[in-house]
C-alpha cells in the first residue's frame, strides 16, 4: 500500500467512524425525542457528512492514483490533525447530547447548522488535495 493510500484510509476511517458514532448516539436516545425530530437530526448529520464522504468515496472508487503519487510529506500530519479537529468539533456535541440529560434537539440542530458551515474550511482543502488531485 502506497503512502497516499494509507493517508486516504486514515481519513476515510476517521470520517466514517465519527459519522457512525454520531448516528448511534442519536439513535440510542431516539425515544426521548419526537419521531420527526429524530428524522431531522439524522438528515442533518447525513447532510453534513454527505459532502465530505462523497468526495472521499468518489475519489476512491473513481480511479487509482498513479504509483508515483506522493502526498506532501510535511502537510500530511497537519491534514490528519485538521480532519480530526473538524470531526471532534462536530462529534462532541452529538455525543454530549446523547449522554447529558436535559439537552434539547433544537439546540443540537442549531449547533450542527452553525458549526458545520463555519468550520467546513478546515477539511475542504485537504480532501481536495488527498482525494482528487492525487488522482490527476
Amino acid at each position, binding site marked *: 500500500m502506497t503512502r497516499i493510500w494509507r493517508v486516504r484510509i486514515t481519513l476515510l476511517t476517521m470520517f466514517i467512524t465519527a459519522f457512525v458514532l454520531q448516528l448511534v448516539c442519536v439513535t440510542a*436516545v431516539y*425515544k*426521548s*425525542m*419526537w419521531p420527526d*425530530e429524530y428524522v431531522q437530526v439524522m438528515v442533518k448529520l447525513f447532510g453534513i457528512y454527505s459532502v465530505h464522504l462523497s468526495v472521499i468515496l468518489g475519489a476512491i472508487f473513481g480511479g487509482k492514483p498513479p504509483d508515483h503519487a506522493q502526498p506532501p510529506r510535511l502537510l500530511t500530519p497537519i491534514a490528519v490533525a485538521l480532519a480530526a479537529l473538524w470531526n471532534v468539533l462536530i462529534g462532541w456535541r452529538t455525543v454530549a*447530547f446523547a449522554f447529558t*440529560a*436535559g*439537552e*434539547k*434537539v*433544537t439546540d443540537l440542530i442549531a449547533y450542527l447548522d452553525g458549526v458545520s458551515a463555519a468550520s467546513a474550511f478546515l477539511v475542504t482543502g485537504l480532501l481536495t488535495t488527498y482525494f482528487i488531485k492525487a488522482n490527476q
Partner: protein
Amino acid sequence: MGGARSAHAEGLTALLWHVRFIATLWSDNRHMRHLAPLVLVLLALTSCASTQPVKLIAAQRVIIGDETGYNVEYEFSFMSRESVYVRQVGPVGASGHLEHLVRAEHLDFLDSRNGKILASLAITPTIHPSASPPTMDVPPESAFPTAYQSFPWTSSAPLIAAANDVLRRYFRYEPRNSDNLTRLFTTYAVLPHSAGAPDVPAKIALLLSFPHDPATNRYSLHVRTSVLEGRSRSDVYKTASDDAVLRAADRFVGQLVAQMQGVHP
C-alpha cells in the same frame, strides 16, 4: 359609592359599640376617665381600619395570553351577609381569601349578580419583577376536549373557596363568569406521573365549572382536562396519547377533587 357607603355604615356601627363600651368604663371606674379619650381615639382608628370589607394582599402584573392582567391575592369579609358576588368570579361566601388571575384593573363585589356594588378593590401591583411580567399559559377553551368528568359536590365547603385552596397549590387559575356559570381555567402544571416513562414529561391544565342541577337541586363539579405530553429532549408538547400519562392525569384529577371535597385535606 354604594360600597363606600356600606363600609362606612359598618364602621359606624363598630364605632358606636366602642363608644358605648368606653361610656360604661367612664361611669364605672373614675381612674379610666383620664385614659378614656385616648382609648376611644385608638379604638376608633382600629375599628375604621378593620372594617374595610376587602383587602389587597398582593398583586403582580402578568401576561395572560396576549393581554396584561394580574395575579391577585386578596381577602374580604362582609359582616351581616351570607354571600357576595364577585363580578369576575361569581358567587362566593361572605368572607374568604382568594388568589387568582384576573384581566381587569379592579374587582367588584356585589350583593347579587345584577345587584348593587358593595365594594370595589382597585388592583395595584405590589410585586415588581425586575424583568418583564411573567407569562401565564392559560389555554383557550378550544384546547380542552368537550368530554368532561362529573363529580357530585358533596362537601359543605363553598365551591370557589375549596377550589381556590386546592388549585393554588398546583396552578394559577383564571375565573371567568358568563351565563351565570363560573368556570376556572388553570395554567398548565407539570403532571406528576409514576416512574416507567422518564422520557415522557407531561403537563395538565383544567377547566372547572360548577353547574347547578335543578332536578336534584345540587351542584356538581365538571372537570375538563387538557393533557400534553412531551419528550425529555424536546421542547415540543403534543396532545397526550400515552396510556400512562392519561391514567396519571385521571388519578391527578381524582386526587384534586378529593382534596376539594375535604377527603384528603
